[in-house]
C-alpha cells in the first residue's frame, strides 16, 4: 500500500481521482477494518498534513470544527461544556482517552458507525464537503445520504444549544465504558414559556445501528406541554420506528427497547414495567468471628512487602519470554485449520519451503515421537495429520527470517481438506447418530455419584427448587498471549522458553512428541504474563520445538490476540441442572445434579474440571441424599480446559443460588437457611472422604451477616432508574489436584556459589507473587533476611519439580517444602560455618546477612553467607532437596480433596431499569485460608479473582456459531474494564486453623473467584425477585423480568 500526504485539499482530490484509494484521517477505524480482513486500498491519502482541517473555532453561538480535529482536542476546547453540553457528553463516551487522541470528528462521521452521529443529528449541524465538482454544504443527514465517500468532509459547524433546553445523550454498550455501542441515543427538547415543547429532535445510531432521526416520535412530542406527554405512547412509537439490527451480542428488540427506555427515562417520562420491588430482609447478625483481618497495606504495614519484580515491571525492564530478540532469531508462525471439522487429504509445503527467507516448514511428518498430547488424555495432535477438529487446530508451522516472510509462507502451504459435518453443541454431540469427532466417540467422560436415597429425600420435601444454570465459554484473557522462543545448543539440548504452569510436565509432554529424552530438554516457564489455567496445557511449544530442531536456529513465536482467541483454551461451558429439596424446617434433604459440560475438540483437563465441579455440588452444606451425573462431550467448538476455579465456581453458582431461592420459599433469610445446613467440624467431605480439620463456613457466614453492606440503601433509587440489592454466597474451594491423581511436590533450599540462599521451586511466577512468597517463607523459617533469599523458579535446569502452579497449591508447596528442608539446611549451614569459625555449630544462628551468635543480641555478623560460599567447594555448598506428595486422603471412589478453603462473598449491585445492566457497587469478600503468607499477594488474588468472577457473571463470553468464534479480539470480547470494577472492594482474612491442623496456608488463587457469581445473582434476586440462571446475565432477561407485573 502506497501512502501519499497531500498538502492541500485540491491535491488530495486530484490524487483520489486516480483510482483505488481511500482518505485517511486518524486511521483507527481503517485499521480495525483491516484487522477484520477487509482489503487495503492501493493508495491511502493521508489528510493529516492539511492543517486547515484541524482548526477549531468557538464562539457563544457556534463551534466551527475542522473535520480533522481530534476528539481529544475538542474535549480540551474550554467552553464546550457550556455551549454544547450534549456534544461534550457524547465526546467523552467515544472509545478511550488514548484513542480519542487519534480519532477525528470527520473520521467518526464518515465511518457511518460513529458514536457521535446521533448527537450531531439532533444538534443544529451544518457540514461542508468537497467533491471533484466543487464544495457542498448541507445537514448531517445530507452528508449521510449523499455519496459523500467520494469527497472530503472539511468542516462541521454546530450551533450552541439553547439555555434551558432539555437534552440527553446516552451510549449503551456491552460494558460500562470503552465499549462498542449497542445503541446510542441523543435528544433535545426546546421548551417554551409554559413548558410546551417547541421542538423535539431525537436520534439513534452507533455501531451497527443506522444513524437516524426519529420523526414520528418527534411529532408526538412537539407542541404539547411536557407534563401532558403520554410517555407510554411515545415508547410504543419509538419501539415501532427505531431501526436496529441484531448481532451475536444483542437482539434487535433489545436495542430498540433500551433506546426507547433511555429516551423516555432521560426526558422525564415514566418507564414501562413495574416500580415496586421486594424489600430485602437483612440476615440477622450471627456471632462475629474473632480475629478477622481487613486486608490493606495500612492494616499491617510491616507485612507489606514490595514484590521484587514490580519495579522492573512498571519500568518495562522485566523481560518476558516473548520479549527475546536477537539478530539471528527466526520468527515462527502456525498454520491453523480454519475449518471446524475436516479430513486432511494432503499437505503440500513445497511452495512455502521454496520461498526465500523460509528456514523451516514443519508438519506432522516431522514428528518423531507420539503425535498426541494432553495432560491427562493424549488426544490432541501437535500438528494435525488425519483430521482437524477445530478451526484453531495446528496443521503446519513455519520459521522464517521475519514475520512477514513467515506469514507469506503460511499462505503458500496447500492443504486439501474434505469438510466433515461439524458438531457444535454438546447435546447434539451425544446423539447416537452424531458425527464422531474422535474414534472413541463424543462422550469424553461420564461420572456418577450417589448417596442415600434421593427419591425418598424428595418425598420428604417441603420445597423443591429445580433450575438449569448455564455458564459461558470464558476466555482467560492473560495480557501476554501464548508464546516464547526455543533453540538447540551445542550439546543437542533443546531449550524451550515459553510461558507455562508446569515446566517439568511440559518437558515430559515435549519428550513424548519429539522422542527426545527429558534430560535433553530444558523448559523455562517464568516469568509469564498471566495464565489462570490457560497455559497449563501445551500451547505453542510443540510447533516451536519442531521449528527450532529443524532450522537449528533460535526461533521465537507468539500468538497474536486474534490467533490466541481462535486457538487458545477457554473455560468449559456447562449446563448444570440442579434439583434441591428442603424439609419444613429448612433442612436440605435431597439433591440431584445433572451436568453437561463441553470439552471442545480435545479433552485436556476438561474431565478433571467436570469431576471438580461435581465434587463441589453440595457446597459447604450437609446433604444426606444426593445423586450426581456428569458428562463431558467433545465438539468442534474450540478447545477448553483448566481455568481458575476449575469447575468449582460454576457449581458454587448453582448451589448458592439454590439456597437463596429455597430460603425465599420457606421464609428464611439467606443466613438462616445456610446456618441450618452448614458442614460442621469433624464431618467427612461431600464424597465421604477424610478432610482437613479446619472448617470455617460458620465463621464466614457470621462475618458476612455483620457486613455493613446490609445497612446501605437498597431498592429503587430516587433517580427512578437503578434498583439496588445485596446478595451473599458462601465459598468452598478444594486445594490440590485431588486423591485420584499423582500430585508430587517438592523444593530445594541451597547456598548458591555467590552466597545467596536459594529457594528453588519448579513453580511459576504468573503474576500471583511467587517471588515474594519464596523470600518471605524461606526467610521466616531460617531466620535469615528476606534480601538473603533468591528465588529460583520456573526453570527445569535450575529448580526441582514442585508440581504444577495450579489448583491453589503453590503456597502450600513453598511453605511445606521450606518447613521440611529448613532444619537440615540450617544444620548443614551451621556445620559448615562452625568449621570455618572453629565454633560449635549449635552456638550459631542464621540471621540477616550471615551467622550470628545464638541467644545474644550482639548484632555482630560472625560470617557472611557470601564468605561461607567463597570458602566452600561446589560439592560442599549446603543444599537440601525435598520431595513429597501434596496432602491427599485415601479416597478411591473418585477424585476428592483433603484441604479446602472457605469464603463468603457479598455483592451490592445496581440494576438499570433502562438497560437491564447490572453494575456491582460494592464487593466484599471474607476468606479463611489459613495464615496469610504475603499480605499484598493474598489481597491481590482475592481482588483479581473477584473481577474475573465479575466478568464471568456480567460481560464475558466467546459465543460460537457453526464452529467459528463470533468474537476475534478484545473489541467484542468484553474483559471487564476499570469502570466495571466495583466502586468499592474490601477483602478480609480469618487466619486461624483448627487445633491439630498440619496443613498450613491454603491457596487463595481460586478463592477470590468462587462465590462472586452467586453473590451477584443473589443480589439481583434480592433486588428484583428474578434469579438469573444464565451467565453472563443477559440484560434482556433482566428487562423482561422488570416488565412482569
Amino acid at each position: 500500500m502506497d501512502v501519499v500526504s497531500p498538502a492541500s485539499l485540491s491535491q488530495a482530490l486530484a490524487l483520489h481521482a486516480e483510482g483505488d484509494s481511500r482518505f485517511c484521517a486518524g486511521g483507527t477505524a481503517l485499521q480495525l477494518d483491516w484487522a477484520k480482513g477487509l482489503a487495503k486500498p492501493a493508495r491511502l491519502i493521508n489528510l493529516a498534513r492539511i492543517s486547515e482541517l484541524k482548526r477549531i473555532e468557538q464562539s457563544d453561538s457556534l463551534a466551527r470544527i475542522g473535520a480533522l480535529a481530534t476528539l481529544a482536542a475538542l474535549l480540551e476546547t474550554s467552553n464546550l461544556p457550556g455551549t454544547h453540553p450534549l456534544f461534550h457528553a457524547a465526546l467523552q463516551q467515544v472509545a478511550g482517552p488514548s484513542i480519542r487522541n487519534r480519532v477525528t470528528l470527520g473520521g467518526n462521521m464518515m465511518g457511518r458507525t460513529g458514536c457521535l452521529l446521533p448527537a450531531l443529528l439532533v444538534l443544529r449541524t451544518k457540514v461542508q464537503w468537497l467533491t471533484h465538482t466543487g464544495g457542498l454544504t448541507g445537514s448531517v443527514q445530507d452528508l449521510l445520504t449523499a455519496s459523500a465517500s467520494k469527497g472530503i468532509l472539511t468542516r462541521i459547524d454546530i450551533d450552541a444549544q439553547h439555555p434551558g433546553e432539555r437534552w440527553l445523550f446516552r451510549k449503551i454498550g456491552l460494558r460500562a465504558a470503552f465499549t462498542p455501542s449497542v445503541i446510542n441515543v441523543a435528544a433535545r427538547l426546546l421548551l417554551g414559556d409554559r413548558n410546551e415543547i417547541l421542538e423535539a429532535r431525537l436520534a439513534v445510531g452507533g455501531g451497527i445501528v443506522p444513524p437516524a432521526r426519529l420523526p414520528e416520535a418527534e411529532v408526538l412530542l412537539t407542541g404539547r406541554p411536557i407534563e401532558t406527554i403520554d410517555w407510554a405512547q411515545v415508547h410504543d412509537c419509538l419501539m415501532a420506528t427505531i431501526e436496529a439490527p441484531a448481532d451475536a451480542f444483542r437482539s434487535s428488540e433489545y436495542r430498540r427497547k433500551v433506546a426507547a427506555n433511555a429516551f423516555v427515562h432521560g426526558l422525564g417520562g415514566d418507564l414501562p414495567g413495574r416500580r415496586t420491588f421486594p424489600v430485602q430482609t437483612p440476615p440477622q447478625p450471627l456471632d462475629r468471628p474473632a480475629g478477622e483481618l481487613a486486608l490493606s497495606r495500612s492494616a499491617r504495614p510491616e507485612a507489606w512487602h514490595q514484590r521484587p519484580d514490580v519495579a522492573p515491571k512498571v519500568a518495562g525492564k522485566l523481560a518476558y519470554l516473548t520479549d527475546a530478540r536477537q539478530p539471528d532469531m527466526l520468527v515462527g508462525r502456525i498454520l491453523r485449520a480454519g475449518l471446524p471439522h475436516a479430513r486432511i487429504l494432503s499437505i503440500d509445503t513445497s511452495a512455502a519451503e521454496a520461498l526465500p527467507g523460509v528456514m523451516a516448514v514443519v508438519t506432522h511428518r516431522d514428528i518423531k515421537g507420539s503425535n498426541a498430547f494432553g495432560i491427562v488424555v493424549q488426544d490432541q495432535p501437535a500438528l494435525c495429520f488425519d483430521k482437524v477438529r477445530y478451526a484453531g487446530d495446528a496443521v503446519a508451522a513455519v520459521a522464517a527470517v521475519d514475520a512477514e516472510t513467515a506469514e507469506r509462507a503460511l499462505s503458500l502451504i496447500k492443504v486439501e481438506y474434505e469438510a466433515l459435518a461439524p458438531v457444535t453443541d454438546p447435546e447434539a454431540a451425544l446423539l447416537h447418530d452424531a458425527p464422531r469427532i474422535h474414534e472413541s466417540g463424543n462422550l469424553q467422560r461420564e461420572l456418577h455419584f450417589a448417596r442415600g436415597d434421593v427419591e425418598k429425600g424428595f418425598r420428604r420435601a417441603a420445597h423443591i427448587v429445580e433450575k438449569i444454570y448455564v455458564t459461558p465459554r470464558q476466555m482467560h484473557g492473560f495480557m501476554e498471549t501464548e508464546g516464547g522462543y526455543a533453540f538447540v545448543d551445542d550439546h543437542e539440548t533443546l531449550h524451550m522458553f515459553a510461558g507455562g504452569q508446569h515446566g517439568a510436565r511440559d518437558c515430559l509432554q515435549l519428550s513424548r512428541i519429539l522422542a527426545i529424552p527429558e534430560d535433553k530438554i530444558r523448559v523455562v516457564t517464568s516469568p509469564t504474563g498471566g495464565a489462570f489455567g490457560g497455559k497449563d496445557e501445551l500451547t505453542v511449544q510443540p510447533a516451536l520445538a519442531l521449528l527450532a530442531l529443524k532450522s537449528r536456529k533460535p526461533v521465537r513465536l507468539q500468538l497474536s490476540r486474534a490467533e490466541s482467541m481462535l486457538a487458545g483454551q477457554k473455560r468449559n461451558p456447562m449446563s448444570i441442572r440442579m434439583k434441591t429439596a428442603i424439609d419444613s424446617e429448612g433442612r436440605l434433604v435431597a439433591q440431584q445434579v445433572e451436568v453437561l459440560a463441553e470439552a471442545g475438540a480435545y479433552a485436556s483437563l476438561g474431565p478433571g474440571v467436570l469431576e471438580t465441579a461435581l465434587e463441589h455440588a453440595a457446597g459447604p452444606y450437609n446433604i444426606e441424599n444426593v445423586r450426581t451425573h456428569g458428562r463431558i462431550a467433545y465438539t468442534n467448538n474450540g478447545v477448553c480446559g483448566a481455568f481458575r476455579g476449575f469447575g468449582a465456581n460454576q457449581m458454587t453458582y448453582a448451589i448458592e443460588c439454590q439456597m437463596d431461592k429455597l430460603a425465599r420459599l420457606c421464609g428464611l433469610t439467606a443466613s438462616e437457611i445456610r446456618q441450618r445446613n452448614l458442614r460442621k467440624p469433624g464431618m467427612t467431605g461431600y464424597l465421604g472422604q477424610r478432610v482437613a480439620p479446619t472448617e470455617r463456613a460458620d465463621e464466614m457466614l457470621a462475618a458476612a451477616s455483620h457486613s455493613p453492606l446490609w445497612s446501605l440503601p437498597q431498592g429503587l433509587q430516587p433517580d427512578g432508574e437503578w434498583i439496588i440489592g445485596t446478595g451473599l454466597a458462601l465459598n468452598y474451594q478444594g486445594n490440590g489436584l485431588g486423591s485420584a491423581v499423582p500430585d508430587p511436590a517438592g523444593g530445594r533450599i541451597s547456598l548458591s556459589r555467590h552466597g545467596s540462599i536459594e529457594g528453588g521451586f519448579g513453580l511459576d511466577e504468573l503474576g500471583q507473587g511467587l517471588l515474594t512468597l519464596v523470600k518471605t517463607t524461606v526467610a521466616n523459617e531460617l531466620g535469615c533476611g528476606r534480601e538473603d533469599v533468591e528465588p529460583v523458579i520456573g526453570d527445569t535446569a535450575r529448580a526441582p519439580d514442585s508440581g504444577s502452579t495450579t489448583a491453589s497449591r503453590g503456597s502450600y508447596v513453598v511453605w511445606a517444602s521450606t518447613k521440611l528442608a529448613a532444619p537440615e539446611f540450617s544444620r548443614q549451614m551451621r556445620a559448615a560455618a562452625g568449621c570455618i569459625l572453629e565454633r560449635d555449630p549449635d552456638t550459631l544462628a542464621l540471621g540477616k546477612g550471615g551467622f550470628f551468635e545464638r541467644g545474644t543480641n550482639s548484632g555482630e555478623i560472625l560470617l557472611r553467607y557470601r564468605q561461607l560460599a567463597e570458602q566452600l567447594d561446589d560439592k560442599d555448598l549446603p543444599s537440601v532437596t525435598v520431595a513429597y506428595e501434596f496432602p491427599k486422603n485415601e479416597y478411591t471412589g473418585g477424585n476428592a480433596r483433603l484441604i479446602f478453603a472457605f469464603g463468603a462473598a457479598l455483592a451490592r449491585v445496581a440494576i438499570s431499569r433502562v438497560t437491564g445492566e447490572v453494575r456491582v457497587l460494592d464487593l466484599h469478600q471474607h476468606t479463611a485460608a489459613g495464615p496469610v503468607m504475603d499480605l499484598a499477594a493474598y489481597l491481590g488474588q482475592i481482588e483479581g479473582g473477584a473481577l474475573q468472577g465479575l466478568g464471568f457473571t456480567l460481560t464475558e463470553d466467546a459465543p460460537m456459531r457453526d464452529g467459528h468464534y463470533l468474537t476475534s479480539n478484545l473489541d467484542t470480547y468484553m474483559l471487564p474494564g476499570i469502570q466495571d470494577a466495583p466502586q468499592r472492594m474490601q477483602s478480609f482474612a480469618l487466619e486461624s486453623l483448627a487445633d491439630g491442623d498440619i496443613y498450613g496456608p491454603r491457596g487463595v488463587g481460586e478463592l477470590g473467584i468462587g462465590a462472586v457469581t452467586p453473590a451477584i445473582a443473589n443480589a439481583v434476586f434480592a433486588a428484583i425477585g428474578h434469579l438469573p440462571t444464565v451467565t453472563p446475565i443477559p440484560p434482556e432477561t433482566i428487562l423482561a423480568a422488570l416488565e412482569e407485573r
Partner: protein
Amino acid sequence: MTVGFTLNGQTQSLSCQPDRTLAQVLRDDMGLTATKEACSIGRCGACLVLIDGKATNACLTMAFQLEGTAVVTTEGLDNDALAAVVRKALAEENAFQCGYCAPGFVMALVALLKENPAPGEENIRAGLEGNICRCTGYHSIIRGALAAARMVQETLK
C-alpha cells in the same frame, strides 16, 4: 518509505512499509520491548507511548503518521521526573501482578498527571478507561495512582 521523527529524544530516520505499526517497529525492528502488545487493535492500552506528549496506542499508529512527531516510549521515561513518581507509587502499592499491562498503565497515568496534577478517583478511572488489566481487579492500580497523585501534590508544594 522513510519517515523522520524523534524517539526518546533521538532523531530517527526509519525506512519501512508506510502501514507498519509503531508497535511492530519498536518491538520487532528496534528490539524496544518495554512497549507491550496484547491486542494490536487499540483495545487494551498495553502499547501506549507518548506522541507529541499525548498517550497514543502504538499499535494503531502507522509509520507514515510518525513524520515529524516526537515519540516517547517506556524506555524514554527513565529520566522523566513525573514518571519516576508514578512508577514508585505503583511499585510500593504492588499495583500489578503479571505486569504485562503495567507499562501501558504508567504511560496513561503520566499523560493524565501531566494534564491534571490533582486527579481524584473519578478522573483516574476515566483516564484509565482504555487500559485493560486481567490480574488485579484494578483497585490496586487505583490505590497506586491516588498515591502517585498525592506524591505529585507533595512535590508541587
